[in-house]
C-alpha cells in the first residue's frame, strides 16, 4: 500500500520539476531509454503524478541510473521533459537526505 500526496507535484517545483502533469503515460520515454529498465522513467513520472512520494524514496537509487542523455526529452510527444524530471527528483532526494 502506498500513501498518495496530491500536492507532491507542486512540492517538486522548488526542484525544477514543473511539467509532470503534462505526461499522458504513453511510454515513449521508457521505449527509447537506453537503460531498458523496468519502465524507467515512465514509472517515476507516474509516481510523481499520483503523489506516491514514498515509492520514489524507496526506489531512489534507480534515479541515478539515468544517463541524462536527453533521448526521452527529445522524443516526448507532450514536452513533459522526463529527463529534467528525473534530474529534479535527484535534487529532491539529495535535499531530503541532507535535511534528515
Amino acid at each position, binding site marked *: 500500500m502506498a500513501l498518495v500526496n496530491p500536492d507532491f507535484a507542486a512540492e517538486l517545483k522548488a*526542484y*525544477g520539476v514543473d511539467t509532470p502533469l503534462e505526461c499522458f503515460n504513453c511510454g515513449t520515454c521508457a521505449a527509447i531509454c*537506453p*537503460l531498458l529498465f523496468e519502465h524507467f522513467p515512465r514509472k517515476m513520472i507516474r509516481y510523481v503524478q499520483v503523489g506516491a512520494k514514498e515509492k520514489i524514496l524507496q526506489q*531512489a*537509487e534507480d*534515479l*541515478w*541510473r539515468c*544517463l*541524462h*542523455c*536527453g*533521448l526521452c*526529452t*527529445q522524443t516526448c510527444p507532450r514536452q513533459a521533459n522526463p529527463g529534467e524530471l528525473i*534530474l529534479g*527528483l*535527484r*535534487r529532491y*532526494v*539529495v*535535499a531530503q*537526505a541532507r535535511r534528515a
Partner: protein
Amino acid sequence: MFNPQDIIDLLAANVRQTRNPFGVPASKFNTWWKDAGGFTRRPGDALLFTGLMYQAIPYIEATTRYLERLEGSSWAGYLRYSRFLPASLRGRGLAALTPAAGKKKFNGILHTICRLLKKSGAGFFYHPEMDFYSGILLYDLGDQDGFIKHAQFVAKTLKLHGVSKIITVDPHTTYALKELYPKYTGAIFEVQPYFSQLQFQAPAAGNGKPPVVLHDPCLYGRYLQLSEGPRRVLKNLNLEYVDVRNCGEFTSCCGGPAESVSPALNREILARRAGELKAAAAPVVTFCPICLANLLKAGLPVEDLASLVGRHMA
C-alpha cells in the same frame, strides 16, 4: 551500484576543498599550459576555458579501475568514509595511481587545440588561474546547492578578471557555461566551442584515408544542437566521414555519465554504443573527452577530432 549519496558527498567535499572532483591540487592537476608556449591577452580576446575535463580523464580512468573492483563487493559501503579523509590525502593517493603517460596523452589534445586555434587566427588567451572545473558533475548528480556555490565562485572570478568571451573544448563545460551558469548564477558569457573558431584559409586536400565514423556526444547532439560544427570542419578539409544511424540529435549515449555511480552499468551501455559504431567498420572520431575515454575502454580505434585535424594540419 554504489550508494549515490556516498559518491555525491565525496565529490562535493573534493570540489569544496580543491575546486575539482578528485581532490587533486590544481598545481598538480592542470599542467598542460606549461608546455604550450606563452599567451598574451589582447583587448577583446576570448579566454580558452578547458574546464579541466581533458586533464581529468587519466584521473577518471584511475578512479574507475578502482571502483570497478569495489562495485558489488562487501567493501563498497566503506566508500562513504573516504570523505572524512582530508581532500589533499585523497588527491595525493589518486595522483599516485594515475599514470604519467595518460596525463601526457590528454594534455597533448589541449596542445593541439591551441595550435589549431592559433592557426585559425582566433583571438584567445589562456591563464591557469582563470580555468576551473565547471561543477557539472555535481549538477548531473543532483547536488544543486553544491553546484550553485561552485558555479557562483567560478562566475565571480571570471567576471573579476573581465572575461566576457569564452572558448570551450568539451561539451560538458560548454553546456554548463552556456545554459546552466546564466540560469543559476545570472552570469552570461559569450561561449563558443573551439571547433566553431576553426577557420583554415584554404581547403586542404583530403588525407587520402578511408572515412572516419563520427560519435556525437549527447550534449552537443541534443542539448546544444552543435553537431554540425565538427562536420563543417571536416568538410572544409575534405576529410571524409560517415554517420551511423543514431547520430546528431538522436545520438546514442556512450554510458560515460554512469561511470561515477556504476561502472557495471557504464560497461553495459558502452557495449551497445560500441556495437553501433563497429558496424560502420571505420575508425571513430569524437569531440568529448568523456566519450573518448569511454570508447577507448571498449577497445575501439578512436581519436579526438582535434587529433585528426591537428595531424592533417601539421
